[in-house]
């Protein structure tokens, strides 16, 4: 690990004021410390924001305001989250382990980096870690990597479960930074790799997530489901966050579908949603919706399985949600 300075910020204004190139914010450390030890992250200074007073969960209009420093386990255990956003609680509980969830913060969870093995290995090229060095995953081992929205430069996936649920819930991410405060809608915080895979999100240098605000829960039934070959403590091969609201006459009034494990960002399946709305809830419509989304997939040789897996998962989950 490269030598660095450590400082603790008293409040968010001080944290932002301490920012300069080479500074990184430290939350729970579950990903950043890991990456520093691997030599992937090489900050000059760590500004510890884990103790900022951003650890509350409060009602916000019809929704919920979740402080960025809230621990993942506290988020999943909170009565309002369990009652009103069970899909989010489930997504958080499906991620990592009890110990990691006790440490990891909501802000840090969103900003965690890909687990692509080449990204994590500084002895090998990686466009995300070292722009322009190449992407060995495309010809090499990409079995766990993206089938949607990837580029010639990067086929990484975003590893978070929580972010998939937040994307389906239309969460809004509040950030503060050298340029002031702003709100970033959740499908939209994370970028697709394009020609700049080194940028995971649309955040500007020095910007700090302060809160995630959930709008009122969407009507209908919801579910988070994660596929993995190990029964626990494993990243998703594919995951889904889905909400389905069906009218009394069997018509899909509204729906949300987001996929994890398939793209550089939590993947909101807008094409599937569009196909679903107004259709008659049932296996045929669900299969058509899944196809509408997954026909856009461009799998690589060793991750082609993700396409039928995601398709089946969409259909199965919607069937389970349908009345």
């Amino acid at each position: 690990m490269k030598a660095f300075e450590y400082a603790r910020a008293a409040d968010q204004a001080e944290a932002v004021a301490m920012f300069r190139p080479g500074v990184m914010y430290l939350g729970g450390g579950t990903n950043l410390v890991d990456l520093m030890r691997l030599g992937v992250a090489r900050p000059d200074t760590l500004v510890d924001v884990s103790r900022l007073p951003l650890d509350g969960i409060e009602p916000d209009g019809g929704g919920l305001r979740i402080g960025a420093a809230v621990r993942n386990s506290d988020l999943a255990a909170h009565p309002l989250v369990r009652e009103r956003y069970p899909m989010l609680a489930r997504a958080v509980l499906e991620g990592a382990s009890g110990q990691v969830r006790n440490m990891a913060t909501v802000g840090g969870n969103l900003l965690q980096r890909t687990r692509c093995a080449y990204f994590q290995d500084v002895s090998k090229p990686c466009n995300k870690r070292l722009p322009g060095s190449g992407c060995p995953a495309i010809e090499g081992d990409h079995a766990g990597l993206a089938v949607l929205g990837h580029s010639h430069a990067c086929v990484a996936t975003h590893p978070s479960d929580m972010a998939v649920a937040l994307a389906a819930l239309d969460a809004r991410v509040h950030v503060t930074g050298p340029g002031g405060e702003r709100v970033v809608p959740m499908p939209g915080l994370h970028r697709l790799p394009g020609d700049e895979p080194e940028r995971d999100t649309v955040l500007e240098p020095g910007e700090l997530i302060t809160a995630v605000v959930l709008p009122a829960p969407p009507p209908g039934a919801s579910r988070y489901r994660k596929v993995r070959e190990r029964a626990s403590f494993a990243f998703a091969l594919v995951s889904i966050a889905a909400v389905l609201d069906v009218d009394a006459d069997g018509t899909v009034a509204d729906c949300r579908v987001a996929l994890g494990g398939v793209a550089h960002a939590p993947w909101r399946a807008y094409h599937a949603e569009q196909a679903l709305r107004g259709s008659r809830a049932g296996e045929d419509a669900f299969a058509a919706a899944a196809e509408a989304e997954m026909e856009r997939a461009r799998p690589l040789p060793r991750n082609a399985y993700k396409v039928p897996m995601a398709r089946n998962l969409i259909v199965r989950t919607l069937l389970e949600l349908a009345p």
Partner: protein
Amino acid sequence: MEITLTVNGVDRAIDVDPRVSLLDVLRERLGLTGSKKGCDHGQCGACTVLIDGRRALACLALAVAQEGRDVTTVEGLAGGEELHPLQAAFIEHDAFQCGYCTPGQLCSAVGMLAEHGPSAATEDLTADPELTAEEIRERMSGNLCRCGAYPNIVTAIAEVAG
């Protein structure tokens, strides 16, 4: 940097390099080698300790970030010569072989038993579930045991959970 923290009830002031993990402070500086280094990347659970009463991974915790925290390691679980009920149950139910994951399993179990709320194994997330074997297995899945003593670990924890 100078930090102070409480380890197993004893206040400690230590001068540490910011790069040093809490795990390495415990093992290399304080002689508390009960907390184990199995992977150093938060992937095995062998380094699990209690930080302010909650189970956490000492390998991913920078020591400098633990200023003022209360840390309990496996060495601090027993009250003098009186073993913690989980320690006694681990012996009685043969919940280990090589013993290297055991301190982490124990600290994790102590923390887990104090936790509230559902797990990924819970059907109804709004209810507080009973601690069935299935719940214990899921909640303890952050602690790898390569010897495969899982069934006995579950039995030992279930006995103490009552």
